[in-house]
């Protein structure tokens, strides 16, 4: 690595980490969580970034070549489609296969875990995933033990190694050739979301809260240690960058406050505290509105999370959490898609004036930046923050 790139890398990383630690760096850090927008900007179809690993990485490289940010958004596809094809994963639809070549992937939500599965899941969730879940969600596993099923397992695992390895190599390349750190290391989920997203789905989990609350609580308890391990393992031992936590069913008003207190928060708090004890900070990516829960979130250890603001009242978030936790966000995605550059610029200046003055603030969109964002608005966000966000 050239000394110039190493210097740029250290400057960006130091700016980012200083803000994560609620300090005041030289400038307001810019960390954009970008997915499909990268493909559009780089001139690739969505099919190309879902299927072609090299174009997936090239799309992110194009962004850091053209925009002066502090972290690399990473490769835009969340899921490498060939990995899913290898096993016949039927809960995702991909551009170019099931959808038009520029359609964002779609998740097919169903109750892949049945109410009668709770006992087996609670007793041994890893075995249940292998024996019961995968045959349900992977068409190639329709006959467990068959040649097709065994080959699908081999190819699925091999594809994960290929995909993970390619992304790790890309991260090293972004560091060495462009002086960019990545924004996160690894991910985990709230136990309630693990249960309520892929497994029971929204309809199922909502029924379970009424019909079988004890089973839900038992399953959530079992998930705590698994989710801590998942965060640790996927971080690869990195204690500098935050561990991504995309939050779903805990947003208001999916649950009422009593349900949130009973089912959502206790086990999520244990997971965050468990990771923090191991030196891993959580990027609390609060999708939707979390305003009613800010006082509870303030119970967490100082600096253990970065509170990301989507539709949460940022003024209240800053009053309740500011000074103890870094805050990031909250440029509305609708503004990035339908607004004008001067409106984006004004919004960023307001965020900097009102919430960044004492440090501990990272500029970002409210949610992950998708295909519909306008290039000129992303440019306005970055350039305004760079020019106006100097301490």
């Amino acid at each position, binding site marked *: 690595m050239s000394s110039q790139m190493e210097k740029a890398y250290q400057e960006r990383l130091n700016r980012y980490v200083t803000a994560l630690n609620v300090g005041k760096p030289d400038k307001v850090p810019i960390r954009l969580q970008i997915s499909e927008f990268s493909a559009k900007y780089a001139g690739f179809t969505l099919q190309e970034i879902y299927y072609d690993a090299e174009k997936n990485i090239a799309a992110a490289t194009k962004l850091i070549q053209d925009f002066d940010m502090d972290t690399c958004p990473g490769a835009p596809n969340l899921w490498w489609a060939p990995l899913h094809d290898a096993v016949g994963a039927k809960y995702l639809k991909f551009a170019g296969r099931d959808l038009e070549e520029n359609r964002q992937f779609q998740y097919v939500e169903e109750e892949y875990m049945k109410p009668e599965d709770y006992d087996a899941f609670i007793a041994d969730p*890893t075995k249940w995933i292998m024996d019961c879940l995968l045959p349900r969600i992977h068409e190639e596993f329709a006959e467990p033990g068959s040649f097709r099923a065994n080959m699908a397992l081999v190819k699925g695992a091999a594809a994960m190694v290929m995909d993970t390895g390619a992304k790790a190599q890309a991260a090293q390349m972004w560091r060495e050739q462009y002086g960019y750190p990545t924004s996160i290391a690894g991910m985990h989920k709230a136990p309630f979301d693990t249960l309520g997203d892929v497994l029971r789905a929204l309809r199922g989990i909502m029924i379970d809260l009424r019909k079988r609350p004890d089973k839900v609580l038992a399953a959530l308890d079992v998930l705590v*240690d698994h989710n801590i391990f998942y965060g640790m*393992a996927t971080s690869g031992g990195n204690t500098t960058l935050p561990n991504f936590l995309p939050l779903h069913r805990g947003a208001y008003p999916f649950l009422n406050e009593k349900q949130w207190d009973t089912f959502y928060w206790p086990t999520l708090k244990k997971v965050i505290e468990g990771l923090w004890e191991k030196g891993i900070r959580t990027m609390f990516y609060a999708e939707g509105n979390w305003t009613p829960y800010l006082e509870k979130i303030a119970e967490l250890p100082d600096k253990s999370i970065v509170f990301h603001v989507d539709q949460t009242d940022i003024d209240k978030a800053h009053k309740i959490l500011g000074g103890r936790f870094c805050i990031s966000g909250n440029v509305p995605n609708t503004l990035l898609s339908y607004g004008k550059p001067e409106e984006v610029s004004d919004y960023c200046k307001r965020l900097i004036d009102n919430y960044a003055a004492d440090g501990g603030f990272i500029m970002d969109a409210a949610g992950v930046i998708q295909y519909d964002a306008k290039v000129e608005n992303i440019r306005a966000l970055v350039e305004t923050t760079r020019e106006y966000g100097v301490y």
Partner: protein
Amino acid sequence: MTEINKGEVNRLPGTTVPWNEIVEKMEPIQGNRDMIKAEWEKLDAFAYIYLWWWVQR
């Protein structure tokens, strides 16, 4: 309901086939037991992550 095999090994987070379940088949181990165990557990943890990756999304 899925049947649960009573007396099955307790699979802790990060394990699919725990070391204590497999080591008996390797006995008598001639050389460095810890080296074999450590590498077994690394690969086992990868298998565990692969399975849970389909859920943690």
